């Protein structure tokens, strides 16, 4: 796919972890992660805590140095670039964080925080900065009266709007949104999700949307990549992945999401126990210790992410062997 704005291939991130007196073991936070996002498109990276979804986002922005793999932005290889060159590319890719208050400097009025990237990257002439800040505030649904306020004097929703305005200041083409609404109240979350949708349409932004909330994902994302213990286990168009999941982990995730209505009946697939440690993960399929459908073959064969059709892929060994036209009912 050459028209992708962001292309990631085989991205890995390993951390050494001290173990015992002399030994080191490896924590595999991201393993062979490949994905792509087009302009104006949202790819959701879904997973539970410890799945490595934030690490992937941070590696793409080079806030962390990946241990391996390639990241291309607009066809330009950025993996090997020195920090000084990456800095020049940063205006094009920005991040919005989960906790708006913690990501905003409490000592500055929010207008100054939004003006900062304008200064740093020389986006607009100095004389124009004030006008541009107000314009950005309007863009995210804030008014001129908010410019002089301090972060703590704003509500959670307003703080997140400032976070978004700050990310937009450098005219980025890609936003990495790391759980941007999970700290917000329901009514405010809806406002921010609608805002993100509008901004994407207006500015043709590409979103990498990191989330654990499938309901929110279904509302914002065009495509989904499901992450388990650092590996993508399933990718595809959002509705297909959520309503006809291939991988047992995706199925379990969908079935664990609370119902929309008390009368709604759901088929429940529960995983036993808790996610296995990402330190020295199992060699083959990482879900085997928890998977209700695991069979001996799952621990013997390497689980590879393989295409099922033009749009979808999964890492489940049994699915790949047993499915008929994308349908596999392991409980039968």
């Amino acid at each position, binding site marked *: 796919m050459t028209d992708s704005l962001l292309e990631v291939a085989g991205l890995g991130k390993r951390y050494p972890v001290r173990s015992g007196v002399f030994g080191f073991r490896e924590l595999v936070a991201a393993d062979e992660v490949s994905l792509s996002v087009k302009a104006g498109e949202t790819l959701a990276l879904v997973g539970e805590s410890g799945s490595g979804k934030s690490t992937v986002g941070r590696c793409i922005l080079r806030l962390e140095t990946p241990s391996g793999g390639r990241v291309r932005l607009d066809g330009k290889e950025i993996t090997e670039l020195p920090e000084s060159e990456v800095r020049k590319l940063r205006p094009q890719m920005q991040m919005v964080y989960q906790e708006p208050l913690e990501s905003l400097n409490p000592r500055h009025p929010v207008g100054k925080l939004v003006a900062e990237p304008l200064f740093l990257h020389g986006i607009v002439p100095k004389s124009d900065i004030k006008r541009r800040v107000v314009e950005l505030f309007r863009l995210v649904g804030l008014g001129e009266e908010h410019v002089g306020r301090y972060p703590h004097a704003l509500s959670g929703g307003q703080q997140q709007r400032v976070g978004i305005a700050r990310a937009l200041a450098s005219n980025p083409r890609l936003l990495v949104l790391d759980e941007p609404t999970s700290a917000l109240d329901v009514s405010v979350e*809806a406002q921010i999700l609608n805002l993100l*949708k509008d901004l994407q349409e207006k500015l043709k932004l590409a979103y990498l949307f990191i989330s654990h909330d499938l309901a929110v994902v279904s509302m914002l994302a065009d495509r989904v990549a499901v992450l388990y213990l650092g590996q993508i286990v399933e990718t595809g168009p959002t509705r297909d992945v959520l309503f006809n999941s291939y991988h047992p982990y995706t199925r379990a995730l969908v079935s664990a999401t609370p119902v*929309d209505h*008390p*009368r709604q009946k759901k088929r429940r697939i529960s995983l036993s126990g808790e996610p296995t440690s990402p330190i020295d993960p199992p060699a083959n399929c990482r879900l085997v210790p928890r998977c209700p459908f695991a069979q001996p073959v799952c621990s013997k064969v390497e689980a590879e992410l393989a295409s099922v059709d033009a749009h979808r892929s999964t890492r489940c060994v049994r699915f790949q062997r047993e499915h008929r036209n994308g349908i596999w009912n392991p409980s039968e």
Partner: protein
Amino acid sequence: MDLPGIAASSEKAHSPQGLEQARESEEILRVEELRVEFHFPDSKVVVLAGIDLDVSMGEIVGIVGESGSGKSVTALSIIGLLRPPGVVTGGRVLFCGENLLDLGADEMRAVRGERISMIFQNPRASLNPVFSVGKVLREVLRLHSGLRGAAARSRAIELLSDVGLPDPETVLARYPHQLSGGMAQRAMIALALASSPQLLLADEPSTALDVTIQYQIIQLLSRLRKDRNLAQIVITHNLGVIAELCDRVAVMYAGTIVEEAPVGQIFDETRHPYTKGLLAARARTEGAGELESIPGQVPDMRNRPAGCAFHPRCAFATGICRTATPILEMSGARHKVACHRWKELA
């Protein structure tokens, strides 16, 4: 699974008039006109403006609302854990007919330990980091059931396996930081159940947990209702958790209950504009497209709007909504709503 403590503790002596006051035989908690203020050096802020709520044996009542709506303060006031600047300034908390607000600190501690328990959002933070799970559990068992030594240990193991912890003997030796979030919440629930309480207050019990673990905790609470007939108040901001778990729901906004009904009616016969807004605003896996958000934000309790506290955000507000506070009135056999215009809007 069945525990001897339940039957025994419900037969404990109460004042005779207290028993009469319990209007239904199975009603276990009745909160009447509960008012709480926060007393600051320079001001007093009304945080709960008269809450009415009741819970029966084996019933799970959900309290849903956004941050600052007063859901946690309600639970803390019921169990007597409200701390300054919070002050209960009025109302009654009748537990098995007895007004808990009249009890002294020692008596209240006994109720809290033995008959009402509470679990919190962040289980690891509510466990003492320097004690192992086993140590804390044995201590609770010694205090409440007088169990010691091997008897306490085997009871502790029983409790841990009862809440679905695999390998309970290993868990006994662990410290809070050695537990995952889901395991810590299960351990907290085991602790809460150690005294065989009749009422469990759960404040956002699954919010800090991953989705698959959240569902396990929901299943566990649901099983406790069935197996032990345990009455529960579950506080959450997540309407999905409400839909999964609760029998009845109270919707709170700015320190008042604005609507209360059986869970099906809250979703199908929604009366209050705020409840309607909440239901429309939440992202759903089934739905797509634009969400209907509620304009504005939750009011600051120091500047509580006059009249109906929701009126500045309400699309249906008229003159009376700005001046008069609506009362929670019956709008159906089991449905209550606090809105001046619910009849016109229905």
